[in-house]
């Protein structure tokens, strides 16, 4: 018997609302399969299961908000025969057992005064469809956010004098689909609170130090131009993938920048899962991971990056992408700034920034030259590393970008 629990989806998320089950009791599941969708303030996150097995029982109904670590379902291991559900041992480590009992009406927390309404995207869509005024509602979701269930409940009670049955109105197919930009804007409001929480924690807890290094980009860009001339447009590479790969390889060589600061100690990570800071069109940002960047060829990284950016902007990410980044890269060069000094996402210990590539005057071998350069930067956690190692780490990124053919 395996307890499938609500995973952590980043330092700023301690609860989420179950939005959808993608499996039912009796279904076989495989490692990596998406079994549920959980709404957080950042995105509708597809929850992956990390065990092979057969679903025995779903413990949390759709619409309920539960804490991280709460068992969501029980799985039978391959070959295990179903026992009586009552034989299930009490989960020893359930951090919030009260949350697991199906509480039909969670006591509504009094709405915090003075901040704007937080509404999950699906709830907002449904509210428009059902004609529910969001202003009159009290949210029961994460941080008082209004969830789909709140909206459905309000719609049901508005239409019936008697107490509403468990609301299960079908989602009308006639609802006009909202544009991606509209959805992104809505998510932006709730996301602001998540970003505020994570970044405040970072600046409160992490003693950052900052280093910068100007990198000559001509060899990398020339190599890329030559590569892309021979590639169909669907397989062209962007400079960003060279940066991601160089950071991952440097992080493999300097493991004190790749991992987590937890329980007063540094825990190096086994793989280099690089978080990519992606700005969303409606405002806000997410930094989900591309897994095993140091192991992947550039073409595969490019495909992964394209896919990740598209899904991040559509508000559909996977749990492992949210929870796994071991180091983050932020590139603000396209917005026209020369350099960016990042704020570390807890519990990571480093963030590498890249500014705008531009022609600049540099001195090479005692002579003045015009070269295309980019400002790289490192913000790192001084508890986990020191500036001298940080300098070597940045220099390694530089060295790697001078040999793009080896990336």
């Amino acid at each position, binding site marked *: 018997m395996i307890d499938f629990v609500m995973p952590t989806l980043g330092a700023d998320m301690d609860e989420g609302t179950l939005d959808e089950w993608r499996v039912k009791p009796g279904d076989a599941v495989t490692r990596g399969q998406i079994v549920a969708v959980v709404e957080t303030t950042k995105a509708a996150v597809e929850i992956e299961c990390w065990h092979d097995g057969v679903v025995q029982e779903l413990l949390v109904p759709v619409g309920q908000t539960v804490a991280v670590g709460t068992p969501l379902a029980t799985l039978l291991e391959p070959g295990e025969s179903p026992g009586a559900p009552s034989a299930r041992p009490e989960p020893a480590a359930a951090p919030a057992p009260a949350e697991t009992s199906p509480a039909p009406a969670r006591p509504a927390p009094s709405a915090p005064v003075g901040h704007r309404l937080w509404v999950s995207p699906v709830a907002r869509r449904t509210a428009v469809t059902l004609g529910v005024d969001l202003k009159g509602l009290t949210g029961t979701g994460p941080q008082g956010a209004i969830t789909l269930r709140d909206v459905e409940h309000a719609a049901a009670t508005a239409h019936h004098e008697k107490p509403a049955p468990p609301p299960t109105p079908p989602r009308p197919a006639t609802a006009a689909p909202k544009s*991606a930009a*509209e959805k992104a804007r809505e998510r932006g409001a709730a996301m602001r609170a998540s970003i505020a929480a994570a970044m405040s924690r970072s600046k409160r807890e992490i003693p950052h130090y900052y280093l910068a290094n100007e990198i000559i980009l001509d060899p990398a860009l020339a190599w890329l*131009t030559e590569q*892309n*001339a021979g590639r169909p447009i669907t397989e*062209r590479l962007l400079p*960003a993938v060279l940066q991601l790969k160089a950071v991952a390889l440097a992080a493999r060589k300097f493991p004190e920048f790749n991992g987590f600061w937890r329980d007063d100690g540094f825990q190096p990570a086994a793989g280099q899962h690089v978080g990519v800071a992606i700005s969303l*069109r409606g405002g806000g940002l997410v930094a989900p991971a591309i897994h095993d960047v140091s192991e992947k060829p550039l073409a595969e990284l490019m495909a992964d990056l394209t896919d990740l950016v598209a899904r991040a902007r559509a508000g559909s990410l996977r749990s492992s992408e949210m929870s796994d980044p071991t180091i983050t890269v932020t590139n603000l060069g396209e917005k026209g700034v020369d350099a960016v000094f990042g704020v570390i996402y807890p519990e990571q210990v480093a963030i590498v920034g890249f500014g705008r590539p531009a022609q600049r005057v540099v001195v090479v071998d005692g002579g003045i030259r015009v070269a295309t350069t980019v400002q790289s930067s490192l913000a790192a956690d001084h508890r986990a590393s020191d500036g001298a190692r940080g300098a070597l780490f940045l220099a390694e990124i530089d060295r790697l970008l001078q040999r793009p053919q080896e990336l």
Partner: protein
Amino acid sequence: MSKDEIRSGVVAELLAIAPEIEEGDLSDTELLRDQVDLDSMDWLNFLVRLHKRFEVDIPESQYAFLRTIEDLTGYIDQHR
């Protein structure tokens, strides 16, 4: 396919990439980068969509000449 049809196709793909813009606000001759927030990933995705829609190849060496809706429409008209 007329140039007008090509232009509508170009604008449709642009709106797919940047849904926040209003079609009526777009000028054919102003620089795209001054009208639409496109990073290099958006630009590449936009060109891939044009490539699929019009079956036209757009080499990277041409990017510098494709700066307005008018440029793109003309390029596709000549190369498809």
